[in-house]
């Protein structure tokens, strides 16, 4: 970023149509982002109001519905049919939204907070601390994300909390690298030099000048990370590393159970699969929209 550009940003931040309000304005004009917002809003609503929306308890079994096989398909009383234990699939998918939202948010929060700390320290302090931290991040990045998560779960033991930590941990290097890059660009900006010149403490320069101006790519990445987190958690659940209680209505775990019945009841796999796709798509669309809205290069074009 050149000095001129940095100046331009500074000016705009103070101007009535600031960075965020302008971003919001452009986001609203992006049809993809609107669709994303609708999907995510629906997803969050379903998650929050699950007990009101669901027609049955997510763990309520009715074995007599099965009639010795697997599994009766959609009907009036069971919109998505019932699973291998006679549980209402619609209600399970609805409650599953809660788990996916919770898991997504918690694991991104884990990855984001640790990643931000590392990235900020490395970017601002620089020198050998930066080198060591970034080489550590490189090591983590060199292991494929899902594999790293599987390794962490193997060490911690299977379970919902463990997979949230594991998926969060795989996000750490991504956030750390992103923030560090962004800080390196901001660190030499004129307003930072100015703050330094008037004797502002290092910590408050970092917290109140550099960080706020470096966060926009992180926000975009955070939204996209929510999507990958949901997929990774479902993947780990599918591999049997998810909740120990198999009756937990978690989408990935629900998929695991269905592989044996694919020939007779394919809807058991299709419906939770579609739920994963829809929620992930929603976050991805918002993420893409945000990226375009916040990217200075797109500014003024929308």
């Amino acid at each position, binding site marked *: 970023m050149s000095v001129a550009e940095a100046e331009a940003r500074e000016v705009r931040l103070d101007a009535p149509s600031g960075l965020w309000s302008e971003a919001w304005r452009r986001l609203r004009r992006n049809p993809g982002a609107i669709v994303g917002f609708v999907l995510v809003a629906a997803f969050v609503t379903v998650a929050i109001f699950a007990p009101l929306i669901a027609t049955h308890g997510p763990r309520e079994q009715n074995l007599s519905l099965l009639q010795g*096989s697997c599994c009766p398909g959609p009907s009036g009383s069971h919109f998505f049919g019932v699973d291998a234990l006679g549980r209402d699939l619609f209600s399970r998918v609805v409650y599953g939204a809660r788990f996916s939202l919770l898991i997504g948010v918690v694991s991104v929060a884990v990855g984001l907070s640790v990643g931000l700390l590392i990235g900020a320290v490395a970017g601002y302090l620089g020198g050998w601390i930066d080198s060591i931290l970034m080489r550590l991040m490189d090591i983590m990045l060199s292991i494929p994300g899902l594999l790293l998560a599987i390794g962490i779960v193997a060490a911690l033991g299977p379970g919902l909390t463990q997979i949230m930590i594991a998926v969060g941990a795989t996000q750490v290097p991504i956030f750390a690298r992103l923030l560090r890059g962004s800080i390196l660009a901001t660190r030499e900006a004129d307003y930072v030099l100015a703050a330094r010149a008037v004797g502002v403490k290092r910590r408050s320069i970092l917290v109140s000048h550099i960080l706020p101006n470096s966060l926009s790519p992180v926000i975009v990445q955070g939204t996209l990370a929510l999507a990958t987190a949901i997929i990774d958690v479902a993947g780990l659940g599918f591999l049997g590393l998810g909740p120990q*209680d*198999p009756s937990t209505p978690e989408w990935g775990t629900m998929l695991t*159970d269905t592989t*044996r019945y694919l020939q007779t009841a394919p809807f058991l796999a299709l419906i939770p699969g579609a739920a994963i796709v829809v929620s992930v798509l929603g976050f991805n669309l918002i993420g893409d929209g945000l990226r375009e809205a916040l990217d200075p290069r797109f500014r003024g074009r929308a």
Partner: protein
Amino acid sequence: MRRIALKFGLVAAAFTGVLLVTLGLGGSSSARPTLIYAGAGDPTYLDPGLVSDGESFRVSEAIMEGLVFLKPGTTTVKPRLATKWSASRDGKTWTFWLRRGVKFHDGTAFNSSAVCANFNRWYNWRGAFQDASATYYYQAIYGGFKVNEVSGLSPPLFRSCTARGKYKAIVKLRRKSGTFLPSLVISSFAMQSPTAMKKYGADQGELRNGTFVPTGSYAFSHPTGTGPFRFKSWTVGQKVELTRSGNYWGTKAKIDRLIIRPIGTPTARLQALQNGEVNAYDLAAPQDVATIRANSKLKTITRSPFNVAYVTIHQGPGSVMNDLKVRQAVAHGLNRTQVVNQFYFGAGKLAQEFIPPSLPGWSSKVQKYAYNPTQSKALLNSSACKVPCKIDFWYPTSISRPYMPDPARNFQAFQASLEASGFSVTPHSAPWRPTYVAKVNDGTAGDLNLIGWSGDYGDPDNFVGTFFKSYSAQFGFQNPAIFKILTRAANETNAAKRIALYKQANEMLMKYLPGVPYAHSVSFIGAEKRVKNLIATPVGGTWFQYATVG
């Protein structure tokens, strides 16, 4: 590159197809047809003494015979290469009268010295042959060898074998044993040609990475027995080919050739049957049975149950399960009827005791436990573990067994019914191998766990004897009276007395509840309707001798 590979694959597939059609129509020299059968995998080796898996036994059973066998389709011990036998009063000396005029496929005469050569071969195995990966069944029945070279082997049961004349063999044991004779039906104890074994190095082998590997060619290309089929060829990954033995002593095979192909997954085997690539296949998935039956050209052949699925109740220091009332509450709290009726695709039968009904010693008088949540809660409240009684319950992942097609499904149904019955269940799971089975055996898989057993030979000792002849870490169950009855039964040589003892043991077991059996399940062969008289043997094999392809 990928496209080339694909093309090559297509060509190969087409070629295989042509080959199979040729084989199917072939054997033109004779009117008798070929039967192509699909198993789940290649045999390990073709020397049955050195293997313990069904894929190997399926082949060796067609080539070789034992002194006795289970009448095909049943679990009754019948004469085969021995026409009759007797045991001395002390149960240590067994005399076998042998069938006359039988020849091994290589022309060697079957007689008493051949029988003793086989017994002595097993007894004298040394070195790598004493590894459990080689001689699992020998060790399970006979304990140790003449010279035990591996630590942990018990003293041998076998003492000597003497040929008395051409057709009488006398086997002497070191201890009284009621399981010696019924265990002779196990394919591992089939009679093999001493000449061929010597010629092709059947007793050469070594351990590679801890697993036994034969180094002679016998177990790969020269297995020789007296059975209705003789070995022709084995192409690993492709097929084993057997041909009809024209001078078989009994009912000669109705087919000229028997080809056994390894096809890994049940779905692929089903497709091979649907495409006409095979005439029949083993281990049809229970959920595919309806699909097979719906096809007008196909049918299923049912293998009667010879297994048991049960819930282990683990007792131990400080365990709530030490209280019989809690164990009874578990028995009444498991909704076994629904699980068996709904989850086994018509292949399950409710188990009320630890042995299947087809075995002698099964008792109709055992105590039965109906699903009754109210009674469970009442039992718990009068016990040391009041409602909600907290228990740990384990189940295996990534496995399907005939007696437990979908463990997680069984688990969830039981979990729900136990929770309705006053228990608070903490679920735990682990992959079947290497973790789960080891944990169950070590007694570290919670208060309850899901497990089961498939029988190896037609004797109740193979079920209840294995579980309850002595203390085991799996159950932590202490009941000297039951241990004593089962040990007496295993050593008893009088059949009627043995049956009475096993009935008594089964009744006591269901009274003291070391576990709760819930299912015996059948398994299926999928076949073309024109395949007739193919018999599924309960112990897991397939009897090809009488099979015809119309």
